[in-house]
């Protein structure tokens, strides 16, 4: 059984419909990417899957029906969401961002976890007392990811981490993300416009076009297929 199973997902804003029945699956520990151009509905998909907006259709997580639950219940179930634009809390320090990431936890291992993320992301460790808003885009993206992992998620939703980052910085972020997922065993549902980058990271991919899934398959197959590349991926 899949960790996340989405069936016939429909969502929008007021009268504007954005998603017209999306099916997607993410297995335990799997790295999955949803590709799509600007306005395709990637962000809306993630918002539905973290409970930030209402959605029709079915969202099953670990066999449990999530429709109609609050965002904090999605989080408690094990879904963490790094929003587009990173969503670091700019007026808090690096360390405070990590502490607030552990808001839902009641165990006594929060401090130990923070130290562990400082080891994984040494640049955060060097800047623990610095205000998040004063850090570079790449550092903030790493902070956002580390903060999301503070809730010990089983599924990380990650919205366009490459946005506004230089290619080298993006590569470093993705690199770190790969080692973090290997270490924690968390699954990732990544949405991206940058197909080249994302297909190198994920094992499986969906292509979202105007609110419907146009295509899906193994990342390697999509990457290798001339026709697919030209029609959907633009590289």
């Amino acid at each position, binding site marked *: 059984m899949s960790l996340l199973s989405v069936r016939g997902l429909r969502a929008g804003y007021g009268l504007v419909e954005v998603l017209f029945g999306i099916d997607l699956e993410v297995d335990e520990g799997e790295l999955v990417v949803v590709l799509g151009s600007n306005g395709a509905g990637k962000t809306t998909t993630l918002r539905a899957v973290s409970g930030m907006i209402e959605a029709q259709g079915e969202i099953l997580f670990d066999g449990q029906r999530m429709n109609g639950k609050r965002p904090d219940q999605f989080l408690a179930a094990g879904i963490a969401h790094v929003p587009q634009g990173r969503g670091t809390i700019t007026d808090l320090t690096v360390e405070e961002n990590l502490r*607030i990431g552990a808001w*839902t936890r009641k165990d006594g291992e929060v401090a130990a976890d923070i130290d562990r993320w400082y080891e994984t992301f040494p640049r955060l460790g060097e800047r623990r007392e610095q205000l998040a808003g004063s850090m570079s885009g790449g550092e*903030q993206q790493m902070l956002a990811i580390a903060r999301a992992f503070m809730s010990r998620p089983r599924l990380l939703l990650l919205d366009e981490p490459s946005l506004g980052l230089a290619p080298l910085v993006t590569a470093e972020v993705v690199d770190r993300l790969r080692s973090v997922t290997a270490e924690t065993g968390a699954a990732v549902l990544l949405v991206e416009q940058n197909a080249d980058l994302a297909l190198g990271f994920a094992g499986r991919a969906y292509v979202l076009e105007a609110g419907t899934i146009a295509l899906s398959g193994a990342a390697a197959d999509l990457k290798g297929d001339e026709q697919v590349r030209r029609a959907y991926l633009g590289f």
Partner: protein
Amino acid sequence: MNNFLQVLVVGIGDGAVYAMLGLGLVVIYRSTGLLNFAQGELAMFSTFITWTIWEVGVPLPLAVLGGMVGGFLVGALLHQVAVRPLGDPHLRPLATVIVTIGLFLAVNGAAQLIWGTLDKDFPKLFGEGQITLGGVAIAWQKIGAVLVLALMVLGFWFLFQRTKIGLAMRAVASNSESSALVGVPVPRLLMLGWGLAAAVGTVAGVFTAPGLGLGSNLMQLTLIFGFAAITLGGFDSPLGAVVGGMVVGIMTSVLPQYLPIFSKMRLAPAFLLILLVLLFRPQGLFGRKQVERV
């Protein structure tokens, strides 16, 4: 010289009260990024609650605690019924500010309905006594106000810097959407902020009432001075509220002694100060400049 010291002492005592009200404003600003125009009226209302408890024979310090609890409940309740239904105040700032102005009128009307329109005598928390230092008389009430203010600042510092709830309140103020994403119950924290601000306001009211008499207009001047205080100190800075409160208190007490025009226009220095700060240093003395989001 003695005369100057005397008005200075009076100014510091008044300033402590402006700072208390300013602290309540800062609490709301720090959780919503907005000014609460109903802050003074909430303080007035909970001062009436204090008075009612005291009237039935409870010692004043206990009555003040009761008034703070009452103020907390009223503040939290008003948030739930009048502010929360608007949705996230960060997304609807104008609507929220207008609701606080509506609450200003509503709370004022409610106080007149419940307690009538005649001013009540209100006792001094620290009594009528005074000490004389180098020829300058200092009322215990003024010393008490400064001490209570110091306690409140310590309390807030502890809350915001040392507790998980305080951290969450700061997180909500900075970025409510991200805070919700990590599971912080945003509306509940905003409710807590309203309750706390009202509870703090109670103390400001308790120190204002003996001089002015307790009526439904008790805090309206003080609110303007409180606004001036946090404009000078910085809307988001508890320390700024204190320093700003002191400066405003001293200014309004000392200036009329030397420039008679201000004795007829007590509010003028405060407005002048607000104007100058907004023109030349909009973030105030201790306020944080808006950090750009990358």
